[in-house]
């Protein structure tokens, strides 16, 4: 459902993505790992349409259409969702209002009827329960004053409500304690299905014990330098990222 070909992206004339190729099939879960600064978040943001990154080469096909032609909102309406590494705080906008507006715009674009406040609340309650989230979060301003863990859960909660077809998660595990990690992973796993693909970006292998991927890719210096099955994650965990540097330098890339 997603094909990335030779994707190059830069910001302020600094090239960050330097030729990414990736193929994600329907229902598959792909993990992208890599050291800090390798371009994981940039890739995720480019897929979501962040304009501060300029795509200088390559293409991205989503369900056969040219993704890069779409505005961020149109991508979301087409079923793409990004769980941010650093979710933005929006003072004065309640989580409920925000999420219901989002859901209804997406529904409208799909020719569905809008959901009223009552039905939305019922839906939200159901999803909150799965994530073991406090209902009080609904009435607070979006992410404002949320703890790190609350922010991450809120991202997954939004994903659960919006039910995207392609869910991209950028370090949804970072900064979580093991209990929170399990809950978030449980939330993500409950959304797995044959009609939904996922790209799980993580710096640590730990998350992949709970969200078991079909494929693992290693992003290094703006390129995918190694791809494999879930076992690759374990290899990375035991060897660290250091050996990659040597391999890349020696030209032994996968």
């Amino acid at each position, binding site marked *: 459902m997603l094909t990335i070909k030779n994707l190059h992206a830069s910001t302020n004339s600094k090239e960050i993505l330097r030729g990414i190729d990736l193929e994600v099939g329907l229902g598959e879960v792909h993990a992208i790992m890599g050291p800090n600064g390798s371009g994981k978040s940039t890739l995720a943001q480019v897929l979501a349409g962040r304009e501060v990154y300029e795509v200088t080469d390559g293409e991205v096909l989503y369900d056969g259409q040219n993704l890069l032609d779409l505005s961020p909102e149109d991508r979301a309406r087409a079923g793409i969702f990004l769980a941010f590494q650093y979710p*933005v705080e*929006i003072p004065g906008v309640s989580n409920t209002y925000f999420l219901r507006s989002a*859901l209804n715009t997406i529904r409208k674009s799909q020719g569905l009827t809008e959901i009223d406040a009552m039905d939305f609340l019922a839906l939200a309650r159901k999803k909150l329960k799965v994530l073991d989230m406090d209902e009080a979060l609904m009435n607070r301003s979006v992410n404002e004053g949320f703890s790190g863990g609350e922010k991450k859960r809120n991202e997954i909660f939004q994903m659960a409500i919006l039910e995207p077809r392609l869910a991209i998660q950028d370090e949804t595990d970072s900064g979580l304690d093991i209990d929170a990690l399990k809950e978030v992973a449980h939330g993500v796993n409950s959304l797995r299905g044959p009609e939904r693909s996922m790209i799980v970006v993580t710096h640590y292998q730990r998350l992949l014990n709970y969200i078991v991927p079909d494929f693992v890719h290693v992003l290094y210096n703006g390129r995918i330098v190694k791809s494999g099955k879930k076992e690759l994650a374990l290899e990375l965990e035991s060897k660290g990222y250091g050996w990659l540097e040597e391999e890349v330098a020696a030209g032994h890339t996968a």
Partner: protein
Amino acid sequence: MTAVKDYQGTYLAQFQAHEKDHAAGPGWLAEVRRAAIHRFAELGFPTTKDEEWKYTNVAPIAQVPFQPVAAASATATAESLAWSCFFELDCPRLVFVNGHYSPGISFLAGLPKGVTATRLAKAVSAGTPALEQHLARYADLQNSAFTALNTALMQDGGFIEIPRGAVVEKPIYLLYVSTGDGGPTISSPRTLILAGRECQATVIEGHIGFGEGTYFSNAVTEIVADENAVIEYSKLHQESRTASHVGTVRVEQARSSNVTTHSFSFGGALIREDLNAVLNGEGAEAQLNGLYLMTARQHIDHHTTLDHAQPHCASRELYKGVLDGQAAGVFNGRVIVRKDAQKTDSKQSNKNLLLSEEAVINTKPQLEIFADDVKCTHGATIGQVDQEAIFYLRSRGIGISEARKILTFAFANDIIDRVKFAPLRDRLRDALFQSLAKRSRKEPA
């Protein structure tokens, strides 16, 4: 005086035309008026050379010979006012059209016993004793040509007197309407609010206008809060597109009184609002909130002064502005802490959101501290809509113009949230929403 022709003489003549009426009224008032017109003659209209008027050119006022409207032609119907923010509120109200009281659309039922809400002109002719003591005793006409002019020419307005201990549940609404008919016209609304000890009340002062005619509304309001009085006062502008409004609100606070003011500006072509609060008793508290939403070529200038004259007083001031189009804003917030005002606790902030490249804001906080044991902070911000927040909303499917609207609404709604009386908040949100909907525009690529 300016080299350009101004019409100061027009108002001196208007004053003369009324001198006979003034002589028939109480002597003290005639004297006040005489002093005021003399002062106005001396001061003349301010120019941008005047430090207090540096960024606001009053040429649209000074260079037009505004005339008062005769009582008989001052009419408006309830239907023609229904659109205005608070008109459908269920509360007692006094309506003045082009400066004249309009009994047909005023509504005074529901006032608690002992509470006075009436026309100033009537209170004057009834010889109300409190007037001589309070009317025109606070607003400074020595240093303000516009206050002097209002004081000389004032005909009518709201007079509210709340006795000791009275708790007024519903707001009292003073509505000043300008129809703009037969313009250019002037009105000089005058409001006096006397809040007795331990009383509690909410007062709204609305200024609205419609039509295409040019008018000038020169309003002065004095609010006197006695010990322990708790007052919430909101002033709302929904003036017409071509209107000029100069408003002065002077608040005098006694010991442990608590006054909250809100200033909401959604309309007008040229608006100048002066708000001066004197915390003149130990432990008094003032909250000053303001929200201005300006677009096209609208100009708004807020000058506020918080004068801490006694110890242990607290003030909190937050003014927020949303400026679009080629709108211009001025915020000058002065905080004075007198020598005796130890333990003053004052926080002031002015935040502005600029939605276009051409909109401008001049913001200047001024602290003048003469006491040594005080806590005072102030700050100002000028910024655009947060691009990261916009992207976050868009990444959830919300369109770009809707995203901007949501963020702008949230920024402005912060001020509306501070209004204590819930039905007012709802109306204000509606007004804000409509105002933003009207101006939602295409995003530059």
